[in-house]
């Protein structure tokens, strides 16, 4: 019984973790909390949906044991790229002009406005009703004593881990990752070292938007697609990013897992009514013990 809650918590936590990476990267490199991060999940899912229906591929048969057909795998990278592009475009028209004039608070308020605009644009374009990638029914498979998961949800965890490993390699091994970590520590010094700050910002938006889009598509496949799917997750994303130590990508992912587990386990332990508060109880407890989060840099 508890084992099933743990498994469910890991699946939803992996999605929260993927979504929170963008939040933490934006904070580290651009220095503000982006309230529109949730909308990148939403837009990722709707980009995939639009591509599926636009190309007429949405009706392909499911690929057993999964409840989706091969076209979803085809449009997934496109949706990730489009959402990364959306994040870069949003930076270009909104955040970049503001960076020169407004402080971090101005950027936060602007992101709040962007969040509302992006969510409403989805309603305008796709309607308010929930949508689905496919009507196929996902069957839960026993994976351990007392634990049943659909193949789709197992794939969520596998893809999330894969994306996380790729991001870790990028941040630790590549020149871009080095430049991103340097810019997060001291942007002015990064320029002295020859780092183009604008390029690093652009890369952060691509990665953060893309990771969120991946989470959005996977969430859309395992739950449903609806205009507030990302906004509904925003508080969990913040909890995960802060829990992991703001600015740490790996921390945000682990933070997401902790949040997912806390939310899932709160149901049998505290009662379903406490589920929305569970992440904050954990957040509160961790920050009391470690004010910089689990993996945050000590000041």
């Amino acid at each position: 019984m508890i084992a099933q809650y743990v498994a469910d918590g890991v699946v939803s936590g992996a999605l929260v973790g993927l979504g929170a990476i963008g939040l933490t990267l934006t904070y580290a490199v651009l220095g503000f909390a982006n309230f529109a991060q949730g909308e990148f999940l939403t837009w990722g899912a709707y980009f995939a949906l639009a591509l599926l229906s636009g190309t007429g591929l949405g009706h392909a048969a499911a690929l057993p044991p999964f409840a989706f057909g091969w076209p979803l795998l085809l449009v997934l990278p496109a949706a990730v790229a489009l959402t990364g592009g959306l994040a870069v475009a949003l930076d270009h028209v909104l955040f970049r002009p503001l960076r020169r004039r407004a402080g971090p608070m101005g950027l936060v308020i602007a992101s709040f406005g962007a969040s509302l605009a992006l969510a409403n644009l989805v309603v305008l374009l796709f309607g308010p009703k929930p949508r689905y990638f496919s009507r196929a029914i996902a069957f839960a498979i026993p994976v351990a004593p007392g634990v049943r998961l659909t193949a789709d949800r197992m794939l969520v965890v596998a893809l999330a881990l894969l994306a996380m490993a790729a991001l870790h390699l990028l941040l630790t091994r590549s020149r871009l990752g080095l430049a991103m970590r340097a810019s997060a520590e001291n942007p002015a010094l990064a320029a002295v070292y020859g780092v183009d700050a604008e390029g690093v910002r652009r890369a952060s938006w691509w990665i953060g938007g893309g990771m969120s889009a991946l989470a959005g598509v996977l969430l859309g496949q395992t739950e449903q697609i609806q205009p507030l799917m990302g906004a509904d997750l925003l508080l969990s994303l913040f909890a995960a990013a802060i829990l992991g130590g703001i600015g740490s990508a790996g921390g945000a992912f682990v933070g997401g897992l902790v949040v997912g587990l806390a939310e899932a386990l709160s149901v049998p332990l505290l009662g379903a009514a406490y589920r929305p508060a569970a992440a904050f109880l954990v957040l509160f407890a961790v920050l009391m013990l470690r004010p910089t989060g689990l993996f945050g840099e000590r000041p």
Partner: protein
Amino acid sequence: MSVLLAVSGLVAGYEPGLPILRGVSLTLGEGGIVALIGPNGAGKSTLIKAIAGQVPRFAGAVSLAGRDLAGTPTHRLGALGLGYVPQVANVFARLTVAENLVLAAAALPGPARRAAVAAQYAAFPDLASRARLPAGRLSGGQRQMLALARALLASPRVLLLDEPSAGLAPAVVSTVFARLRAIAAGGVAILLVEQNVGAALALATRALVLVGGRIAREDAAAALAADPGLADLFLGRAA
């Protein structure tokens, strides 16, 4: 002597309408060490930052080997031959020594990058043995060495150094200064800000005294060192 760095009529500061530098001109030639001295708050760091594109320039011009630097962002200056070591926070504390060097050499192709980093390790053995240590855990002297090695990686023709000896033990200062002398002997032009006026004048060929954002005096280093009026100049009294 060919002019590598030319600054003329430079007016610069942090806020529009509040210039810190009020018309500064100077030139730097191949292989010369020019000491920039002056009281605290005179604008020495501001002058170096304005040359490096980190402080807005309101008027005047800066050119590097004949090329006007107007509009050139800081991150391109290294490739053009300008190296700059800030006074404080001049290395990334959270990156390792090796990562600091690799990042600074990132524009070079693979083999050249490795060779450049290896050359700095050979020149600064203390860094080589600490390659995997976060720079934040280096001693003050080692950190200055790393900052200097980082700036040298790109083979600059002009080097702007803001108090490279600050906080170092006298023995370490003489090591750093010996390195600077060797670097200058290789043809690099160095603009050196120093609090230790005596040591700076002993090292430099020429010296500029900056007071209140203006060059109050420019002379051969030896002549300034012998001038009993230098202290008055520092205190803002007429020379």
